[in-house]
């Protein structure tokens, strides 16, 4: 069992850098928007490193916390999470790199929250990023190739989000979490990640509710990471058939960033999708008090997909409370 409640972990602040296409989508208010994919750098890798650096710089500057952060946790989609590593070296902060694909942000937040709640550290920064063109190069075809895509494909969002977690009381409280189990439902198609990840999300949700003895209606909103339009349908059907669960309010972050005219097929994906929607859309409305985040990750590499191996997927669950 890996569900736990937190007593004193709060989100002190968040900061977002969003890509140019994201800024033309459904969300209009970002902290910062990049003018182009290179972000005044020579390479796309440098651009993504800069995105992360700008996020941390702003968090430190805005909160006057330079030199006062105990731990930095981060992850991204690049091989060996090299982008997060190259960013972390710019700051004199103890660092943990994490990877669970698009669930990396929530994984980082759960680890940091445990450290803080058990008073081993006072505060931490959790960061993630994804860059559409870096992800394309790594997982799919050359960028300028414009390979035709399946209708089930998701589109990696560009952006970076960071948060400061702290023991000091603030508006957003991390209430509880469940660490998900990797699952394998024999899905090997990396162009259909919604189908790969839906069972992981469903199983993690069920575990969370069972272990904390809660009803699904306890939450005002269930926000899944990047299942996409088709993945969401599969997820809903899965929990209905297997657990007889019905969500009263479900949003999939994958459908909340881009407009349908932007041709992103099944929706947005990438580790930044969930925090981007959460901090720039959901939490700005103050419509929901109890929010359950289910971040999902498809744990494949280009080699494992080429060799047609079934893709393991994972989902981590984090419950968030908006204080009155």
């Amino acid at each position, binding site marked *: 069992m890996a569900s736990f409640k937190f007593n004193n972990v709060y989100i002190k602040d968040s900061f977002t850098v969003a890509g140019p296409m994201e800024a033309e989508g459904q969300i209009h208010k970002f902290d910062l928007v990049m003018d182009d994919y290179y972000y005044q750098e020579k390479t796309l890798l440098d651009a993504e490193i800069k995105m992360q650096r700008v996020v941390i710089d702003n968090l430190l500057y805005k909160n006057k916390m330079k030199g006062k952060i105990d731990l930095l946790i981060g992850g991204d989609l690049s091989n060996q999470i090299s982008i997060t590593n190259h960013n972390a070296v710019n700051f004199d902060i103890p660092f943990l790199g994490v990877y669970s694909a698009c669930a990396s942000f929530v994984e980082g937040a759960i680890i940091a929250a445990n450290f803080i709640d058990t008073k081993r550290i006072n505060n931490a920064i959790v960061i993630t990023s994804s860059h559409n063109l870096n992800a394309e*190069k790594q997982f799919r075809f050359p960028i300028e190739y414009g390979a035709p895509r399946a209708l089930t494909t998701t589109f990696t969002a560009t952006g970076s989000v960071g948060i400061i977690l702290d023991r000091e009381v603030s508006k957003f409280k991390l209430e509880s979490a469940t660490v998900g189990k990797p699952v394998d439902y024999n899905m090997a198609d990396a162009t259909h990640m919604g189908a790969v990840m839906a069972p992981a999300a469903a199983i993690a949700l069920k575990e969370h509710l069972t272990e904390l003895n809660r009803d699904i209606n306890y939450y005002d909103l269930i926000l899944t990471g990047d299942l996409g339009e088709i993945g969401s349908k599969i997820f809903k059907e899965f929990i209905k058939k297997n657990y007889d669960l019905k969500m009263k309010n479900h949003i999939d972050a994958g459908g909340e960033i881009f407009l349908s005219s932007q041709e992103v097929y099944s929706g947005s994906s990438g580790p930044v999708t969930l925090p981007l929607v959460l901090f720039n859309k959901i939490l700005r409305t103050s419509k929901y008090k109890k929010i359950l985040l289910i971040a999902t990750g498809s744990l494949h590499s280009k080699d494992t997909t080429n060799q047609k191996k079934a893709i393991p997927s994972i989902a981590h669950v984090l419950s968030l409370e908006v204080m009155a």
Partner: protein
Amino acid sequence: MNKDEYKKLVDKLTPKENKKKNAFWAFMIGGLMGAIAEGLVTLILKCFAVSEVEAYQIVCLIIIFIGCLFTALGFFDNWVSKAKAGLIIPTTGFAHSVASATLDYKKDGLITGVGANYFKLAGSVIIYGIISAFIFAIIGVIIHG
């Protein structure tokens, strides 16, 4: 729910690609490309004193150059993602695949980047093109002597 039942659920909820529509547009656009190339061949034969074989070679070079140029200018990928096989199967697709891979790896060095990844996508076309040419040449010899 076991894995087989899950596969059925996924298949039920996954939208199907409209193959007939895709094939129609691939045929139209690929055909249009062919027509343009034929037009160029006729034009070259009329304007310059070259043989028919040479004219086809020149047109092939022109199309490859245009494919690479449009890729480098950054809009050919949008055309490919719309026209799909209509632009991938002709020579334009081959040129485009080489140019796009090169652009991706230009920062990774001339040897480890550009050189090693130049034929990333086009390598399959070359290797299987040569193998099938070899096989068909043998068949041709057997049939026609």
